[in-house]
């Protein structure tokens, strides 16, 4: 994994480590200044072993979560990378014919091959080049009737093995390639496994020129040339002589790819790969086209436009792109079309895209179109950096994983930080006497903070190490689950991979956030109102005394010149401490913070009124609306509400109401308003604000705000919440006094109870949202199988080299098939192409974008007239039902239905998948009825003019997620030299026919076509179980967060035992049995946990309901349903863990002997 949240991992690690070192350096300076405080802080650590262990556990969880997210990302990317490197071997670059449909005109001419080989053979950067043919042919093992379908066969030029890894047998020995006979075959391990074939066996290869017998020369490792290349259906590969395969395919001396190995071993540098590929590409561009492009661009008007654009965007353009554009301008002015520099610029996709943009903006779409058409024909051969690309994908997927887990993990991390805070509050509470004495003998508050921070730094260090360990352990377990998600037939398998860098990063990041939290906590804790805290009364903190306005102004002035003031102190008062403080404050960030604090202090009395807060909220809200950012808008709105709550509290404090009642009213109003706001459906306020953009960050924000708000409301209205518990459980005679004691305490110490409740709520909230959404998708799949399968029972792929001429006839002739078993049979195929929308749409002009990639799918009439696929939008002029629209396509090759990928997505979880063809003027959430519109479909061959098609509907996103255009088999007749072969067939079976048997019979009958059949029911099941496994993985990961909540219960309970010794003794004296004390502790923590769990479940349900409604605008038919089993498991696991943790303190409490307890202060 190379990037995280878009930041390079290396930089992130260094940055974090430096930050950590900086922190430690500051600590060290303070420590050396004040050894006594250091000693005081450190000496506290070994005093209570159990407590120290508990603290370290509490502090380590955030780090553990970071470490496990990173380890998961690393594992995923290293798994993909390893399989990529394994299967590619020495191959770094491939040269292929331009891609327009895998089956159309896909061979390099012998002349092209020669010129490539001549070029690279002279290039010192190139190790070797291997011309080859790769295709898919079925292979049979007559000895055991096994067949390998959908697998690859590659013909290699055995004379050109230099630079490539030799084939190695499964025993690790090198297979001498010179001994490979003309009719010999090397099987890779996957193929050998599929066919159960060994060296020496006779196999049959089905080729377009007939069946041929081969002898297995050896079984070799599935690596390098015997490794798979982007074949999604099988990892099996057979290797033979190039000339043998060329003969079998009847293609004379043609090859369909040349693989190139460059210097630098298995992983050459990206730069070298870029250079070699770039140079090669330049040699294979069409000079005529380059001339025409040069003429188009060097037109003074066009050149002027480009120059203006570069000048205007001097600062915003990326440096390298700007340099490239400048180079292009220079070339257009002074160079010629043959210049390499010119060619290298016009093959740079970013340069080309910018020029297209410039032309489009200037309204010269005629030029854009011309240029796009030319550009499409520019490359004669397609040079691609396969290895670099695959490694990039590995990194991207790895980062995606870490990001997803990071986002959900951020909840657990936040909860972990709350726990650290709680731990310190408890720690301070247990040190009340000492702190009191220390203060009494003249220790400054600042010194208390320091000694706490020193102590905390030691905990932070130990816990960060422990946290990394725990995180890595947890990730080991999670990877077991992950391995189950990856289907076996995919090209890679999961194996644990962890970069040392990630270990360092998680340690550094964990320790930094722990240290920061520890410092903040130490500061807060030093102002703990000790007398109040020990009695467990509501107000655990004392407010700062307010300084006079004059003093606050002076403070602000001093802050503005902070470092200089310190140096003044140093000189004038010879206060040496000032030197260090002054040096520290010279750091801009520190200085800035000092000023901000002074400003906040200055304004604090007005802030307490609340209206200033609301005013700031209004500003943020307006800013959010301007920026179209839902996150900023919502934060602003929440700040307004918080200010409002403060205002209410401020006003009510002037009345005769008791403080208790005042906070209750103001906090309840504030919490309730926040809840209402955040639980509103996301588009409820659209009419007010216009449409705002929200993404995944909204989910994190809403989670934080709804739980905080709900916890406020509950904590300030606890009697109402507890009333039913009291009523129901209280009626059980023996429990009555127990409940009384159990319920009274947590509701009195609102701060710690609220914190613990919030932790549970936040984690359960995340689990619930994820579970509901996951279930909704699974359900949608299961409920709507016809929408996905189209109502077909079997779908099969065949090789484009071995097409079936007429499937109906073939079925009729096949001895083992009964045509009566089939209700519908139909074929289809897909080809990559490019398209652009023709405006205006509904009278609105659209901006010209030029041609963009799109998939073209063509279906036989039998499929178009019988499928049960649905449409999300269509033009009623062409039919009244989905079926009528599909049927309309059957009759008219100029009509198409577009895949849902052409619509701009506002699905909060949806991603952006590059520059695909998209439509303007229609959105997924629009009503079903739309107006048909025209698109132009191009042929990258350039030989034919683009053709115009009419889009009459948009297909169901549940099935057609990609950006595609769907039509009948004549759709592209004018664009391609010959009809593309159909490569996919669908079958609907008569009632009562066994799909398993028919699918097996079909595979046998069409073996010669490399026929690979799958039951659609199996596909659906696979999808559902992958969904479930992912849910499990996620729950396992979030389980770490749950651990945080549980740990905090443990901390609170252990503390409670100490604080309540006397109360427990007294209760025992008035007749509480030991078991009643124990029960009361367990009931107390159960109630805290269950309130948290309940809140999390309820809020999660509402939020996911909203989310699903949003998604439903795009994906019709997604419905909300409560995953009761998951809910039950969440409740049970969370509760049981809570009980287990509280059991030990509860036991301890019940063993307190009454007289003992009553004696001590």
């Amino acid at each position, binding site marked *: 994994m190379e990037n995280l949240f878009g930041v390079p991992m290396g930089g992130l690690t260094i940055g974090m480590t430096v930050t950590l070192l900086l922190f430690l350096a500051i600590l060290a300076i303070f420590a050396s200044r004040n050894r006594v405080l250091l000693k005081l802080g450190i000496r506290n650590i070994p005093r209570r072993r159990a407590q120290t262990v508990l603290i370290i556990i509490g502090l380590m969880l955030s780090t553990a979560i970071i470490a496990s997210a990173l380890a998961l990302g690393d594992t995923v990317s290293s798994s993909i990378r390893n399989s990529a490197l394994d299967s590619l071997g020495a191959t770094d670059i491939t040269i292929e014919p331009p891609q327009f449909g895998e089956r159309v005109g896909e061979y390099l001419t012998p002349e092209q091959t020669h010129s490539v080989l001549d070029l690279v053979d002279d290039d010192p950067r190139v190790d070797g080049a291997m011309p080859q043919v790769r295709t898919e042919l079925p292979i049979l093992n007559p000895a055991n009737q096994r067949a390998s379908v959908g697998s690859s066969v590659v013909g290699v030029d055995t004379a050109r093995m230099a630079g490539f890894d030799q084939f190695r047998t499964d025993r690790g020995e090198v297979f001498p390639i010179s001994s490979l006979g003309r009719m010999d075959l090397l099987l890779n391990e996957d193929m050998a496994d599929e066919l159960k074939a060994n060296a020496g066996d006779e196999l049959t290869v089905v080729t377009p020129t007939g069946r041929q017998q081969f002898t297995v020369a050896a079984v070799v490792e599935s690596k390098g040339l015997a490794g798979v290349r982007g074949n999604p259906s099988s990892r099996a590969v057979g290797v033979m002589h190039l000339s043998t395969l060329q003969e079998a395919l009847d293609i004379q001396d043609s090859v369909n790819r040349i693989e190139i190995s460059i210097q630098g071993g298995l992983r050459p540098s990206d730069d070298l790969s870029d250079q070699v590929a770039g140079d090669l590409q330049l040699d294979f561009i069409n000079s005529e086209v380059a001339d025409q492009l040069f003429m188009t661009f060097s037109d003074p008007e066009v050149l002027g436009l480009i120059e203006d654009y570069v000048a205007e965007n001097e600062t915003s353009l990326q440096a390298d792109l700007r340099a490239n554009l400048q180079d292009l301008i220079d070339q257009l002015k002074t160079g010629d079309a043959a210049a390499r520099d010119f060619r290298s610029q016009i093959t740079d996709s970013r340069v080309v895209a910018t020029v297209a943009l410039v032309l489009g903006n200037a309204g010269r779409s005629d030029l854009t179109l011309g240029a796009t058409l030319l550009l499409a024909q520019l490359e004669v051969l397609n040079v691609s950096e396969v290895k670099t690309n695959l490694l990039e994908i590995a990194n991207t997927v790895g980062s995606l994983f870490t990001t997803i887990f990071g986002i959900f993990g951020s909840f657990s991390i936040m909860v972990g930080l709350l726990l650290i805070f709680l731990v310190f509050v408890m720690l301070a509470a247990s040190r009340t006497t000492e702190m009191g004495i220390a203060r009494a003998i003249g220790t400054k508050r600042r010194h208390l903070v320091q000694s706490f921070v020193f102590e905390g730094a030691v905990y932070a260090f130990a816990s960060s190490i422990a946290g990394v360990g725990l995180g890595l352990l947890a990730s080991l377990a999670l990877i077991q689950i992950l391995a189950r998600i990856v289907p076996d037939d995919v090209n890679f398998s999961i194996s644990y991979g962890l970069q040392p860098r990630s270990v360092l990063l998680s340690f550094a990041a964990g320790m930094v956030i722990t240290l920061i939290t520890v410092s903040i906590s130490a500061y807060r804790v030093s102002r703990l109102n000790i007398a109040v805290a020990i009695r467990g009364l509501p107000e655990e903190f004392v407010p700062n005394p307010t300084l006079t306005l004059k003093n606050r102004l002076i403070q602000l002035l001093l802050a503005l010149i902070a470092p200089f003031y310190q140096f003044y102190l140093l000189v004038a008062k010879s206060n040496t401490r000032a030197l260090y403080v002054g040096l520290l404050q010279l750091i801009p960030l520190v200085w800035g913070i000092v000023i901000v604090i002074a400003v906040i202090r200055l304004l604090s009395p007005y802030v307490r009124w609340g209206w200033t807060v609301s005013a700031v909220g209004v500003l943020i809200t307006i800013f959010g609306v301007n920026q179209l950012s839902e996150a900023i808008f919502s934060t602003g709105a929440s700040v307004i509400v918080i200010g409002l709550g403060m205002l209410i509290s401020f006003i009510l404090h002037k009345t005769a109401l008791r403080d208790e009642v005042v906070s209750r009213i103001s906090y309840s109003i504030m919490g309730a308003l926040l809840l209402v706001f955040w639980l509103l459906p996301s588009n409820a306020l659209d009419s007010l604000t216009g449409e705002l953009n929200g993404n995944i960050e909204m989910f994190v924000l809403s989670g934080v705000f709804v739980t905080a708000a709900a916890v406020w409301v509950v904590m300030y209205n606890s009697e109402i919440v507890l009333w039913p518990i009291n009523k129901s459980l209280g009626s059980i005679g023996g429990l009555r006094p127990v409940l*009384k004691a159990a319920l009274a305490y947590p509701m*009195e110490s609102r701060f710690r109870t609220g914190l613990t409740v919030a932790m549970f709520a936040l984690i359960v909230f995340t689990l619930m949202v994820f579970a509901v959404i996951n279930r909704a998708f699974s359900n949608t799949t299961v409920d709507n199988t016809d929408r996905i399968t189209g109502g077909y029972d079997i779908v099969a792929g065949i090789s484009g080299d071995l097409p079936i001429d007429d499937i109906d006839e073939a079925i009729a002739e096949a001895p083992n098939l009964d045509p009566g078993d089939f209700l519908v049979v139909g074929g289809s195929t897909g080809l990559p192409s490019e398209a652009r929308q023709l405006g205006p749409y509904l009278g609105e002009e659209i901006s010209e974008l030029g041609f963009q990639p799109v998939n073209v799918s063509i279906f036989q009439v039998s499929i178009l007239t019988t499928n049960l696929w649905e449409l999300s939008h269509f033009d009623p002029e062409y039919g009244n039902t989905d079926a009528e629209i599909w049927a309309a396509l059957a009759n008219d090759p100029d009509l198409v239905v577009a895949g849902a990928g052409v619509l701009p997505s506002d699905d909060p979880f949806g991603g952006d998948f590059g520059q695909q063809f998209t439509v303007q003027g229609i959105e997924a959430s629009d009503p079903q009825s739309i107006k048909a519109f025209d698109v132009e479909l191009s042929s990258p061959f350039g030989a034919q003019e683009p053709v115009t098609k009419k889009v009459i509907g948009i297909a169901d996103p549940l099935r057609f997620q990609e950006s595609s255009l769907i039509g009948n088999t004549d759709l592209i007749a004018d664009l391609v030299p010959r009809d593309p072969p159909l490569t996919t067939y669908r079958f609907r079976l008569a009632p009562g026919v066994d799909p398993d048997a028919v699918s097996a019979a079909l595979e046998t009958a069409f073996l010669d076509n490399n026929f690979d059949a799958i039951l659609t029911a199996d596909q659906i099941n696979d999808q559902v179980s992958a969904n479930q496994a992912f849910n499990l993985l996620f729950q396992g990961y979030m389980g770490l967060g749950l651990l945080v909540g549980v740990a905090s219960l443990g901390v609170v309970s252990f503390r409670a035992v100490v604080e309540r010794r006397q109360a427990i003794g007294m*209760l025992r*004296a*008035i*007749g509480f049995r030991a078991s009643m004390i124990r029960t009361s502790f367990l009931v107390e923590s159960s109630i805290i946990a269950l309130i948290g769990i309940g809140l999390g479940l309820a809020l999660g349900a509402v939020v996911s309901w909203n989310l699903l409604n949003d998604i439903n605008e795009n994906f019709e038919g997604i419905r909300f349903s409560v995953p009761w089993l998951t809910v039950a498991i969440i409740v049970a696991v969370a509760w049981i863990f809570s009980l287990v943790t509280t059991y030990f303190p509860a036991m301890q409490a019940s063993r307190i002997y009454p*007289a003992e307890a009553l004696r001590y202060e």
Partner: protein
Amino acid sequence: MEQEPIIIADKLVKTYKSRTLSVAALRGVDLAVNRGEMVAVMGPSGSGKTTLLNCMSGLDIIDSGSVTIAGQALADLPDDALSEYRARSMGFIFQLYNLLPVLSALENVEMPLLVSGEKPAHARKLALDKLAEVGMADWADHKPSELSGGQQQRVTIARALVNTPSIVWADEPTGNLDSENANDVMDLLCRLNQVNNQTFVIVTHTQEVGDRAERIIHMRDGMIENDTDDGAG
């Protein structure tokens, strides 16, 4: 007045051992208290009064000797049975920490009744009655932190007496009160003693309190120095 004793302590020995030194708090105490008697335990600070009270009431374990209450040897009673006995038949007023800070006065008073399985409505009524009896009816819904020391002590007394226990143990019930309040509290205790024939064992420093008891036991260095049966009579 010849009566069978309700509390019999026989050769009580209690030694506190800490890591460094051991303190002999009770060094062979023999004592019998009759049903309905009001006994005051007096003596200098540290003489073992609180320890004696805790040991006789079963709140603390003794090293040797025996305590028998209402004919039942405490050593033979399992912890649960002892707890139950306390809930039904004993009331406590401690030197420190008497009330649960998180419960209101009323809830504190009804707690022993709930523990002994009284119906909540009935418990509430009895508790309110008791609070009224000690003059605290108006303060029923207040938390201890909102009450003065004397008020808290009255609530404690109400709680100690709410289940009409046969024995009430009181450790310095008037310790934190001014003399007027102390007198009121003692009046209350004496009245209850006479009306309900409950047994009272009261530890006190104050002579006035001692004077109102029927019998004063003087302690010194963990032993009974002097046992007078002729207090207030």
